[in-house]
Structure formats: C-alpha cells, structure tokens
C-alpha cells in the first residue's frame, strides 16, 4: 500500500474520532477517559488499513476522479469504523472486572462455570459451517468486487473500485429536494407544536412526529436513489416497489384472511390447510404457474377477463405496470400461507377478556381491531415484516426469473436479478452489486429494529 498525501488528513480524522469515542465509552462505563482515548485512538489510525491494504489505496492515486475518491473515502471510514467498534467493545469489557463476559449487556451477561472448552467444542461444527458457507464467501465477494472476473479467463485483473463506481452517478433531482423540503417543514412543525403545547394535552405534537418520521424515511430513500447512476437507479426503485407491495399487501391480506378463518365456521381446519399450501411451493414454481395463467395467448386469466369484460387483457410481458403487479401478486400469493399461519397463532393469543371488556365499554368492531387486536399482534407483525422483507429481497428472484426475466425493459429487474444479469459480463460487477444489496439489507434491518422495536408489545 502506498501512502498518498490526500490520505493524511483522513488518518487524522479517524484517529481523532477513535480517541473521542474511546474517551466517551470509557467514561460512560465509569473508567478513565484518557485510557479509553489511548486504546481506541490507535484503532482509528489503523482501522483504515483493513480496506486500504486490499485496495492498495488505489482510489487516492493521482489521476483518479471524484467518484473513485468518494468511494475510497467511504471504504476508508468503513475500515476505521469496524476496528473502532471492535476495539471499543472488547477493550471496554476487558478493562472492567469480569473480562469478556462484560461484552453483553449486564442483564444478558454470563460467564463459564468451568473452563470454556466444552461449550467451544459444541460451537465448532456451527462455526465451521458458518466460516465455509458465509464468512469465506463474504470475503471472496469483497475480493471479486475489485477485480474484472470472467469464468474460464486466463487473467483476473485488479480494477480498483470501478465495479462500484459503475453503479453510481449522483445527481440532484426534484424529488430529493421535495423530500428534504417536506422533512424541514414537518421538523419545524413538530418543534413549534411541542413548544406551544407545554401541558402535553394536545394530539398535534404526536401527529407531527409521525409525519416527520415518514419524511425521514422518504428522504433517506430519495437520497440513496439519487446517489445511484442511471443504470442502477431503476433497479433500486423496482426493488423498493416490489418489496413494499409484497410486504404491505401480503400482511394486510394475510391478517384479513386469518381473522376470517379464526371465526367459528364449519370446516375451518380444511380452509386453513388449503390456505397454507402455497407456502410449500418454491418461488420458481410460483413463477411458472403465473407465467402460464397470464400467458397472453393461452392464459386462463386473460380468457376469463375477456369473457367478463368488454376489454382486451393487456400483455403483462410488454406492460411494465402490469408486470410489476403480477410479480407482486405471485409473491403475495406465495407468502400468504406463511403470514396466515402466524397470524392465526397470534390471534389465538389475543386476550378474550380484554376484548369482552372493550365490548362492554362500547367499543365497536373496528375500534376493538384497531386498539386491541392490532397492538397485541405487534410481535407477530414485526417478525413477519422481517421475514417478508428478506423474502422480497432474496427469494422473489426465483419468481421473476420464470415470470418476467426482469422485463419488460427492466420493470421487474430487482437487485437480485440485476446481480445475476451483471455477472454474465463481469462477475466482479455482480459481486459489487451484491455488496450494495448487503448494505441495503443491513440498513433495512437496523431501521426495522429501531422503528418497530419501539412499538413492539410483547405483553407481560
């Protein structure tokens, strides 16, 4: 690795950040802030090497453009962040009595009664499998993403971060400005309503806070979209649309059907079994089924539609909106059984006493649903959001591959599909794309735990 002059201020920044974080963490644990700064500061200085050594600090070479520089800076801070977090976490635990057992929160911490050999031996099989099938492929993907790779080719040249910059192309768009404007307005409104409502009786601060939360999400999404170039931006939007469609429609429909089959009706166990069936079908099979049903020449859906209505059924293979709708339909149908299963289980746990009490107090069916049943189901909903988002990110690909192959004109090319497409020319492009998807999943997971975690209600 070569040291280029532009990197020196960055090293200063990460070292200073490490020292500050160390001081803060150590102090909050009741330890000496200076010791923390001395331990974590060097981590900030050395952390960037985690990414800069494999990259040979190529992004800071003379002659590189601003995009390379930007990606390089992100990688630089990323490396620093990883090492700072690790050192701060482990170092703080070690400098306290109890050693490594202090790594968990105090109420979850534990320690070994004897020597920890047996537990480690029991863990080894899982760790070996994780290492072979998860950690090694992850590192290999990182390596591939900086190379030009083609199966069977005699060479594998290093291409710096070209595979990443190919995805990027930031531009300022009106929708980003609109989102930022909306965020500023709602933030201001929240602030004023809180100030004018000193006694805390009004509903408005609460409502404005919700609006502000919505605009935070919109702004983050718009900002992310505006960073991507013209090639990847539609992929990002498509992924969002397909995910939102699958999760929202799937959960709403699943809950509705679960409520129906939870009613005391004759033969409901048969309905339940039949409803759960689609879950046992693999995503590609769902794709083939819908492909056949919606076939423009011979499909049954077009036939029924044209018999019942005076219009021609548009061809979903050339109509972008319809294509997305059909993909969402197929994946909702596919996940519905799973959603229903969990909602039925959840509904059985809703306290009947509470519902009866509400009934006596004059709450109508909607109010009982909105204020009692829905809040009681939040743990299930949270779990289902996590699993369905994961499904939409990774599994819908199987359906798309057989239903639309990402078409028409990329209208159903989601992140996974685009990774496969890109890997045809250069596997390195696919690797870069899959790391971008990985980052997206990490961000969504973090947001889910933060946002839903606050409102999840586990009873007790």
């Amino acid at each position: 690795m070569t040291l280029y002059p532009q990197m020196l201020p960055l090293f200063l920044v990460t070292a200073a950040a490490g020292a500050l974080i160390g001081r803060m963490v150590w102090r909050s644990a009741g330890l000496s802030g200076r010791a923390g700064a001395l331990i974590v500061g060097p981590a900030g200085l050395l952390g960037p090497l985690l990414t800069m050594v494999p990259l040979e600090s190529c992004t800071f070479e003379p002659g590189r453009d601003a995009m390379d520089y930007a990606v390089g800076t992100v990688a630089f801070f990323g490396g620093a962040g990883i090492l700072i977090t690790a050192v701060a976490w482990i170092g703080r635990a070690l400098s306290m009595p109890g050693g490594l057992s202090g790594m968990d929160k105090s109420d979850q911490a534990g320690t070994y009664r004897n020597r920890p050999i047996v537990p480690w031996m029991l863990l080894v099989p899982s760790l070996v499998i994780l290492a072979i099938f998860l950690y090694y492929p992850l590192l290999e993907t990182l390596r591939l993403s900086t190379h030009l790779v083609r199966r069977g080719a005699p060479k594998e040249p290093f291409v710096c971060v070209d595979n990443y910059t190919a995805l990027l192309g930031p531009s300022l768009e009106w929708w980003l400005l609109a989102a930022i404007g909306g965020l500023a307005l709602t933030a201001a409104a929240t602030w004023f309503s809180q100030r004018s409502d000193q006694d805390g009786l009004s509903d408005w601060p609460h409502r404005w806070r919700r609006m502000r939360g919505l605009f935070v999400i919109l702004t983050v999404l718009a900002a992310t979209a505006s960073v991507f170039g013209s090639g990847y931006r539609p992929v990002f939007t498509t992924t969002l649309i397909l995910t939102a469609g699958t999760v929202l429609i799937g959960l709403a429909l699943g809950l509705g059907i679960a409520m129906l089959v939870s009613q005391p009706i004759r033969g409901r166990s048969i309905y339940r079994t039949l409803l759960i069936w689609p879950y046992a079908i693999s995503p590609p099979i769902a794709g083939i089924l819908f492909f056949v049903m919606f076939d423009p020449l011979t499909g049954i859906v077009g036939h029924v539609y044209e018999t019942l209505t005076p219009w021609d059924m548009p061809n979903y293979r050339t109509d972008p909106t319809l294509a997305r709708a059909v993909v969402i339909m197929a994946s909702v149908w596919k996940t519905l059984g799973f959603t229903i299963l969990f909602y039925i289980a959840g509904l059985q746990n809703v306290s009947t006493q509470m519902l009866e009490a509400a009934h006596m107090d004059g709450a109508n069916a909607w109010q009982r649903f909105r204020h009692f049943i829905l809040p009681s189901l939040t743990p299930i909903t949270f779990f289902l959001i996590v699993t369905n988002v994961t499904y939409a990110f990774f599994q819908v690909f199987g359906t798309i591959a057989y239903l639309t192959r990402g078409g028409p004109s990329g209208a159903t090319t989601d992140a996974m599909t685009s990774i496969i497409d890109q890997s045809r020319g250069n596997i390195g492009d696919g690797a870069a794309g899959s790391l971008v998807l990985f980052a997206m999943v990490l961000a969504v997971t973090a947001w889910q735990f933060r946002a839903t975690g606050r409102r999840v209600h586990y009873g007790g």
Partner: protein
Amino acid sequence: MRRVRALIGVATAAALTIGLAACNGGSNSAEDNRIDVWIGFTDYRLDWAKERAVEFVEKHPEYTVNVEGYDSYEVLFDALTAASQQGDPPTIVQNFEAATQESRDAVNADGERLFIPVEEAIDGRDEILGEPVVLNDIVDAARNYYTVDGQFSSMPWNTSTPVFYSNSTYLEEAGIEEPPATWEDLRDACDKIMKLDDGPKNCVSWPNHAWFPEQVLAEQGGLLADQSNGRDGRAENIDLTSPEWLSFIEYWQEMYDEGYYYYSGVQEDWDGPKNAFGGQEVAFLMTSSGDATAVVSEAEQVGFGVDVTRYPVFADAPYSGNLIGGATLWLVDGLGESTQDGALAFMQYLNNPENAADWHRTTGYIPITNSAVELLDEEGWYDENPYQRVATDQLALSDGSPAAAGVLLGSFVAIRAQVTQAVEDILTTGADPAERFAEAEASAQSLLDDYNLLYTE
C-alpha cells in the same frame, strides 16, 4: 436393531465412496477411447445424435461414445467452462456460432488452449479410421463463417439461416399474390391483412433476438465491428449506430407502433412467435430455417397453407448476403492420438452425405456438404418439398464479404443481450432508436473492452 442400522449406514457410505472413486478413475485416463460429446439439444435432435453414436460404435467397437444433451447453448457453454476449469472437459463440444471467438480464446485449467482447430488435427488426411473426411466438401456459407486464420477451427454441423414464412390462406383472403420480398412489401401486405374482417390479431412476428437485425445489417453490407468484422484481426470497436443498423430498428419500431408486429414480451423467445404463427394469430413469421420442418408440419395439422421464402430486404439497398446461425463441433486439445482420431472420425461420420441429408430432412438445417445437396436432389426431395431449398439457395447468394460472413466478437452473447434489451426498450417504452442504441453501443463496447483485456497480452 440399532446396530444393524448403523452397519447398513456404514456400508452405504462405503459403497458410495468407492462408487465415486470409480467414476473419477473412469474419466481421467487419457487413452481410453472414450468420446464424450456434449450438445445443446434435449429434443428429437439429441435422439438423432444418440442414434448416430450407436451406429458409429457398431462400426468401431473399440470406441465408446456418450452423447449428453444440455438445455441450451448457453447452459452448455457454462458447463463446459466449469468442467474445463476442473480439468475434466468432454471430448467434443457443440458451441454455437456466437461463441466462436470465445471458443478460440478458451483455455483449460493449465492456461493452455482448450480446443485444437479440427483442420490442424486432421492434418491433411483424406480418411480417418475409414471415415472419409468431408471438410473440403462443406458448403460455402459455413466455410466462410467458420474459416478463421485460413483453416476450419471447428467442424460445422447444424447450420441455418432465417427465412420468411407466410400464411398463404391469409394471403389469398387479402388478395396478395406473392409473399412479400422486401420490408416495404411486408408493410403493404400488413396494411391489407389487418383490414381483413376475420384476420389475425397482429400481422408479423419474429423473436427479439440480435440475429434478426444482424441479418438486415449484413444484407446491406454493414459491419458490426472493426477489423472487417473481426476477420482481419481481433475486433476492438463495435458499431451499433450505423445507418444500416438503425434503418431496420426504426422499421421494427414502426411495425410495432402500428400494431403489425407481435412481441411476445420475452427476449430471445423462439417459441412465442412460432406459436403465434401456428395459432394463426399472425400472418407472417420470421425464424430459423432449422424450424422449417416443424413449422410446415404444424401448419398442415392446423389446416392452413405455408409459403417459405427468402428473408426480406430493403428495396433500394445493396445486397451482400444473409448470415448463418447454428453451431459447430469443437475438439478438445491434448487427447491421446487414438481418442482424437476416434473423435475426428465421429465428426466425419455425423456429416457424411447420408447422415447430413437425413439431418436436413429431420430438422430443416441446411445440408452441410455439397454431396448431401446432390444426394437430396437425386432423391427428388426438393421436388416434393420445395420449401426446404429456400435456406440453401438464400445462403448461396452471399458474396462472401466480411459483412456477409458475419462478425467474430468476444463477449458476443452478452453484447447480443444488450441489443435485445435495447430493442425491448424501444418497442415497449418508445425510446428513440438512435439514442437508445448509442447507450447500448457504450455498454457493448465496455463488455468488449473487458473481454479483450482478459484475453490479450
């Protein structure tokens, strides 16, 4: 009981291990006269090849020939790459014409060339193991395409060219006397057919595959890449914005916008257009001559007449020729002499006049040697089935120029995918052909640059 089960488990595991080891041992020895043939068909064409393999082994009992079918040429090429990287490639591989450059550049696990040019392996012999060498008798169209650096790099087998199929029942109803011979005629014919009261939903269809616009480019003498279409040296620049290229893309868009062209909505979909023609949903079809037998017999079953004619041209443009498509048989390098001779003999056997004629009759691929054409002529095959002659005649019109010979290009399959994607955007979203193809040219160029970076010193 538990002990018995454990014993059975151990025995099964042991049997599996030994079995696997035996399999491995079987395929690794070089001089075993075992010929593995991988081809990209899984239908009646695979059965045909397997029957020929059985006959060959009857004549040459010292050899074993295993023919294995793959879903498509692309799947086959992927499997080939994986196998050769693991040091265990088959003996003969059927690679399609778009992979010609990639096959020439392919290397094995040791970094040496994967395939030996068949002409080099034949080394001037007239017969191998008693099978006459037919390489000198190959028809010109295939010779021009597959002769690279002055010699055949692979053994031609299935060769086709796109031809034009008309539903003659619709033609009569619309009062059209001759099937359209030019793109302008086709539009006029569509004007009439779409006005029929019980006419088809759309007028014409063909797969959204780069092969079709490439034909029109070649007809007009246009080149897809520099270095004379990659035939004077490695192609380095690709051209997807030439007026010859865009003229047909614009025509295609107009035909779609007017509701004349039926797009199945799936890229590189060979079945959709064919089914639309068979179901009389369109009056005209353009597809490979390799489907001629199937298309005509389906029409007979459904009960409408079919005319097969040449691929249309632009009325006032020059004509260079139409391109071939199909695949050739590549011989893996580094085999033992006996295995290599067996493989070469099998290739000659597959293409001897009787077999080449039978292959043509079964499929509609052109008879690949001149003597096969003569044989069919003598049999009176063409008098009974004049439509089967169209492809051969069409290819004979070629002037042999680089434009008509076709392009040799690295990453050609991925580049073709850029073309079909651009066409889909132009049709379904109304993108401007010139602008969209400028974009496609840039992505295709970067694919080609990447490829050339990997395969040149």
